[in-house]
């Protein structure tokens, strides 16, 4: 086993250092050298892992074997038995009490998972989502039992407030405050809603969370219902997620059978039930007031706030509405405690955030990282960087409501405030990486096309404004941009931001404004020089045969419009008047003799 690569993580937090962690590490390294296996082992140091009382801590990957309370005499044993013989030293392995991060134990994939911290997704990919037994085995519904038997509703709210948890749907309103406002309303009838209307292109955090661990969401909602004094919960989920809906239904049935839902939960006086409401997939219905209208059976359109849903929501009753990921955090906060939770993250943003990492990045997937992780860590660390040796250009966060951040913002720490300061938003967690082959104008156009399509039409600035913006952007990408277009886009964008009612309208111009701010030169090139540097805008592109053409005729054969001419073994040429820019000749050429200009 000595040829196997091990990755060791030593906790280098102050708590462990007090317990002589550094001395232990030095000894361990000596031991590695003595056996001459130091080259097979990679050593990382980590910040405080929150297990200070059990320091020094050593994690061995693959396998996420967690050693604690280590003494200097243990080092030779671990090296000999585990690293050389491949048998973990069970005597020294410690069990965590915390709910989070059970993930790593099962995977050796430490490059990807080792940098993450999983709270909301703690059971995703670990348990069978269709078996309530699996969830119970992971201390499922223990938080609910604790809340019902040991805490008053007021204490629950205090705990959530103290944790510093903020809404994970994008806007980041403090969850505890929302709970408090709703609880304060005297109306005996209240509702709890889970917003699972995930609509951002490229985002799938909520779907994965529900498909991977539906009971967590239910448990969070039941706790919420207890805290504010509600009897009825509703999950608003889009019908495009059939598997998620099916698993939720199964989970609700199982929970009812086991007495976690329904009348007199776990033998207490508290009763609560949850039903599912299917959405038709309108993007605007992710906005809370539009969502409430949709549940009521009305057309999904936002209304002015106040009154906020916490005062007058569903059917005019006080309503507590939170996002899937927010709900999934609740059981962990209750079990592991608000103090523990609020230690993770930055000064203003606590806990972790799930991102759907997509686009031009090696490891696409779901990542959950502590707040305060930098964009660079996510994209180049967990994501593994840009594939095919291409250069990083920008990262788009927050979906159609967010913005594009160029390289200079890569070291931005992820929290609600710093992302907003950099000119984007946290959003619900979409993260699209863009490399040098993508045109920023087209990117902006894509998002405006989306919001234009999804605008409900209530406010003129949003309905008409996005339409006009789309027209201008389309023109620019077709090479018909005019001087003054950029200024017009900026003026329109600011106007839409200011004069729209809901978040959809207010944020619709963000992709355009942020790309103008950070990539203005690309817009100018499109308009003035009729050039697209990413060669994505076909109208601004032509294919040219270069001198290294050997005249094999491959391009000629694939051209669907016979635009290529030339004799065998002679340089060919492309007639620009016939060329439809399909790019087939470019792909067919084995000598890279065809260039995009």
């Amino acid at each position, binding site marked *: 086993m000595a040829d196997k690569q091990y990755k060791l993580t030593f906790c280098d937090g102050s708590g462990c250092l007090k317990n002589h962690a550094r001395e232990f590490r030095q000894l361990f390294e000596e031991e590695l050298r003595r056996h001459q296996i130091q080259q097979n082992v990679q050593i990382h140091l980590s910040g405080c892992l929150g297990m200070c009382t059990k320091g020094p801590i050593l994690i061995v990957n693959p396998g996420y074997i967690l050693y604690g309370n280590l003494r200097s005499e243990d080092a030779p044993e671990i090296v000999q038995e585990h690293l050389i013989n491949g048998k973990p030293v069970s005597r020294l392995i410690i069990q965590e009490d915390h709910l989070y991060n059970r*993930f790593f134990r099962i995977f050796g994939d430490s490059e*990807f998972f080792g940098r993450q911290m999983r709270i909301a997704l703690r059971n*995703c990919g670990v348990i069978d989502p269709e078996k309530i037994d699996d969830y119970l085995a992971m201390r499922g519904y223990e938080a609910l039992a604790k809340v019902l038997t040991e805490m008053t509703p007021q204490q629950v709210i205090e705990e959530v407030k103290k944790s510093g948890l903020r809404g994970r749907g994008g806007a980041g309103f403090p969850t505890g405050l929302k709970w408090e406002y709703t609880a304060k309303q005297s109306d005996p009838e209240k509702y709890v809603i889970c917003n699972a209307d995930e609509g951002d292109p490229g985002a799938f955090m909520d779907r*994965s969370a529900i498909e991977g661990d539906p009971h967590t969401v239910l448990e969070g909602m039941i706790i919420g219902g207890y805290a504010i004094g509600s009897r009825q919960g509703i999950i608003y989920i889009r019908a495009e997620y059939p598997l*998620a809906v099916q698993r939720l239904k199964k989970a609700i049935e199982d929970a009812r059978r086991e007495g976690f839902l329904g009348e007199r939960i776990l033998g207490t006086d508290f009763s609560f039930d949850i039903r599912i409401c299917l959405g038709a997939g309108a993007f605007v219905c992710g906005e809370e007031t539009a969502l409430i209208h949709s549940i009521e059976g009305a057309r999904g359109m936002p209304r002015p706030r106040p009154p906020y849903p916490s005062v007058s929501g569903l059917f005019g009753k006080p309503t507590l509405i939170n996002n899937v990921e927010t709900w999934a955090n609740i059981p962990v906060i209750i079990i592991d405690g608000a103090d523990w939770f609020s230690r993770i993250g930055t000064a203003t943003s606590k806990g972790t955030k799930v991102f759907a990492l*997509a686009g031009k990045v*090696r490891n*696409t997937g779901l990542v959950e990282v502590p707040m305060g992780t930098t964009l660079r860590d996510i994209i180049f660390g967990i994501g593994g960087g840009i594939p095919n040796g291409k250069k990083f250009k920008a990262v788009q966060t927050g979906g159609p409501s967010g913005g594009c951040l160029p390289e200079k913002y890569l070291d931005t720490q992820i929290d609600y405030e710093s992302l907003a300061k950099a000119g984007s938003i946290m959003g619900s967690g979409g993260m699209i990486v863009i490399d040098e082959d993508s045109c920023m104008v087209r990117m902006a156009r894509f998002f405006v096309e989306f919001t234009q399509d999804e605008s409900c039409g209530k406010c003129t600035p949003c309905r008409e404004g996005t339409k006009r913006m789309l027209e201008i952007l389309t023109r620019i990408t077709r090479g018909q941009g005019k001087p003054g277009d950029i200024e017009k886009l900026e003026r329109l964008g600011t106007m839409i931001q200011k004069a729209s009612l809901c978040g959809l309208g207010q944020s619709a111009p963000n992709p355009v404004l942020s790309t103008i701010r950070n990539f203005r030169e690309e817009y100018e090139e499109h308009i003035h020089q009729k050039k697209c540097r990413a060669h994505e805008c076909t109208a601004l592109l032509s294919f040219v045969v270069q001198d290294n053409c050997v005249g094999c005729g491959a391009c000629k054969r694939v051209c669907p419009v016979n635009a290529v001419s030339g004799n065998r073994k002679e340089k060919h040429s492309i007639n620009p008047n016939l060329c439809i820019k399909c790019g087939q000749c470019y792909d067919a050429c084995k000598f890279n003799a065809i260039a995009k200009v």
Partner: protein
Amino acid sequence: MDLIRKKRAEAVNRIISKGYLSTKRVYVGMATCEIAAGSKEVMAVFQDAIAKGLTDVYLSQKGCAGRCNLEPTVEVVEEGKIPVKYGLVTPERAREIIERHLKKGEVIQEWVI
């Protein structure tokens, strides 16, 4: 509180009674994305093998682990050994995993994530 502890103990017992501890545990990722990538076919291969007499295996499904570009994923966990997770599993690969890993205990290194 006692009730929930009891329920948990019962649940753990039920899981164990299905053969959780004694055997090799095989998990197939089954979220929408993984099904789209072909995990249903992979699952069918394992189910088929069990129906045809493969023993000592506890087959179960899981949600998305977030490793999108390597889906479908299959995980083989054995008590006391380092867990193995395979990526980009096709029905053919699944058959080979059954033959080589589950029956002969050989870890197929080149497919491990």
